[in-house]
């Protein structure tokens, strides 16, 4: 297996060092080829001039960013004022993704806890059950959800026949429908990391807390949650980030009023109406914001830990 390691290292440690370098090469190539290079391409494209039928002209231009942030009137000859359209779309996207993340956390944490506290033999089955719906294509799942939520759909019919409501609730084309769609699309990404963390949790710590007069609620808050925090953070990131860029759920369940970043970007690369540099610029802005949030979060985390020590 370690054929990549050239012989002739003077010591064993040296040989291992070399082998490690070679064996790590594939992952470096994947990281470089599949994330760094595309990001660089996007960065470059965002500074090019748009070609009207899609594609780009290789000429430097700030037009894409200008269009994102400034309004220069219909013919581009008025003095610039701030363009609110896209900022609003961004803001709404963050709001929707954030709500969907909290919803996933609220449902995902108890689910993960439940699975992790089953007897060891049956946990795999529960995890398997959680993932079953995700074997169906996302598009089909989202369309089905729209069907369920329709005014004449099964959900409204059940609620009406139970006498809980008199007239159908309008759920399609609302913020709620989008949040529900996003929540449903990404729930396993919340459950699985939290499950992994709770499974590794040493439950004798909970016993110790109870032994030291802590109620169940206090034990949860002061002992269990701090111990599984890395899993919760991972789950939140894994749900929040793709929700932010998602376009299926907002398109199908939200309608025009609930347009999100994903749809905005997607349109720029679709058909003749597109504007590649603008799509690339919007992606870059999104990427930058997400990175800044994650960095701020990480910094606050380490500062908090340093303060503890």
């Amino acid at each position, binding site marked *: 297996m370690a054929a990549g390691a050239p012989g002739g290292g003077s010591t064993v440690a040296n040989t291992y060092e070399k082998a490690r370098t070679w064996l790590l090469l594939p992952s470096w190539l994947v990281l470089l080829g599949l994330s760094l290079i595309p990001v660089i391409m996007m960065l470059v494209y965002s500074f090019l001039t748009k070609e009207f039928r899609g594609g780009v002209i290789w000429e430097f231009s700030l037009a894409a960013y200008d269009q994102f942030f400034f309004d220069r009137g219909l013919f581009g000859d008025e003095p610039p004022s701030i363009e609110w359209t896209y900022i609003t779309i961004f803001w709404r996207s963050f709001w929707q993704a954030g709500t969907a993340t909290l919803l996933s956390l609220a449902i995902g944490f108890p689910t993960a806890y439940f699975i992790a506290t089953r007897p060891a033999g049956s946990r795999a089955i529960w995890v398997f059950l959680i993932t079953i719906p995700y074997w169906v294509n996302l598009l089909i799942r989202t369309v089905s959800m729209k069907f369920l939520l329709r005014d004449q759909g099964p959900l409204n019919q059940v609620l009406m026949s139970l006498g809980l409501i008199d007239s159908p609730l309008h759920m399609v084309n609302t913020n709620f429908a989008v949040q529900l769609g996003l929540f449903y699309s990404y729930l396993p990404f919340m459950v699985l990391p939290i499950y992994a963390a709770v499974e590794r949790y*040493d439950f*004798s*710590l909970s*016993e*110790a*807390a*109870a*032994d*030291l*007069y*802590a*109620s169940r609620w*206090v034990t949860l808050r002061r*002992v269990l949650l*701090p*111990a599984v925090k890395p899993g919760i953070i991972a789950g939140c990131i894994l749900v929040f980030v793709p929700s932010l860029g998602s376009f299926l759920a907002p398109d199908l369940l939200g309608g025009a009023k609930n347009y999100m970043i994903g749809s905005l970007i997607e349109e720029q690369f679709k058909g003749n109406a597109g504007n590649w540099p603008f799509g690339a610029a919007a992606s870059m802005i999104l990427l930058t914001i997400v990175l800044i949030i994650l960095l701020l979060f990480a910094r606050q985390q380490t500062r908090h830990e340093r303060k*503890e*020590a």
Partner: protein
Amino acid sequence: MARQDNAIDVRNAVKRYGSFTALKEVSLSIKDNEFFTLLGPSGCGKTTLLRMIAGFEDVSHGSIHLYGQEIENLPPNQRPVNTVFQSYALFPHLNVLDNVAFGVEMKGASQSEARSKARQMLELVQLSDFSARKPSQLSGGQQQRVALARALAPQPKVLLLDEPLSALDLKLRKAMQLELKHLQRETGITFIFVTHDQEEALTMSDRIAVMSAGELQQLGTPREIYESPRNVFVADFIGETNLLTVVVKEIRDGNAICQLDGGHELHCNEVAGIGVGSSVHLSLRPERVFISDKPRESKSLQGKVSENIFIGTDITTIVNLTDGPTFTVRTSNSDRGSKGIFEPGSDVYVNMEPGAARLLID
């Protein structure tokens, strides 16, 4: 009613896991301010009993009283009992000080009160300099002391300790045994200590409950248990002994005359329930036997030395009785001058103090 001066009264406690019975009708009383030990081999139910007292396992049948109050239906966080866990179970995200302060704060003290109490406790276990460290930055012995301080800080009525010393090396373990004993004296808290190490139990305890297979075998002071084991299990489990199969020949004036294989005869005290003709076990501690080159009295047993084993403070001599069982004799090193050492192959006589041999019920 429960007697008020007992710290814990366990009455007919039964614990079942499905069809398996881990504890079979155990009854015992633990006195106030006592260093009490649960001793027994692995799997005998010590931890189960301790966890029932702490409230982590429910009682299938029977009752548990704490200073007269029935507690078996109280959740763990309402029992004035604290535990030192075998794995310590220190909170990894809290530093040493906050670990120790945790229980005090949960009992209603303010954070600053709890911390000052925690500082006192850390001083008591000599860890004041480590209060800002995380548990992962401590050695096993230090973690153990933190666990002890954490459990003592809220001033429980009873402290439960589940094999707290088993992870430590021999030297540290001996030191901690003394420290624990002192702590118990100083704090006046009732300690219930679990161990499977009989030597540890004998050194530390006021009283010992010997358990086996979910049953209480004997309860008594270390001396009672060592010198007057009630049955074969206790005699065999506690200390070293010569366990011999004998037939009771005759009972006269409270004396039972027993016959060993090879026709040797031994005298011991009569025991209720063992009659003439029964084949029973007899225990004879190696240090209560001595050897000589001439018979001391008519009761001396004749044999041949097969081996001498040097074990530090003592010398163990193995003697094969003529046509009979093997005997282990222990001579203290300081006595070797007066009692003499016999080379392997020497013909010797085995003698014993009166009352040294004990008949056992099975």
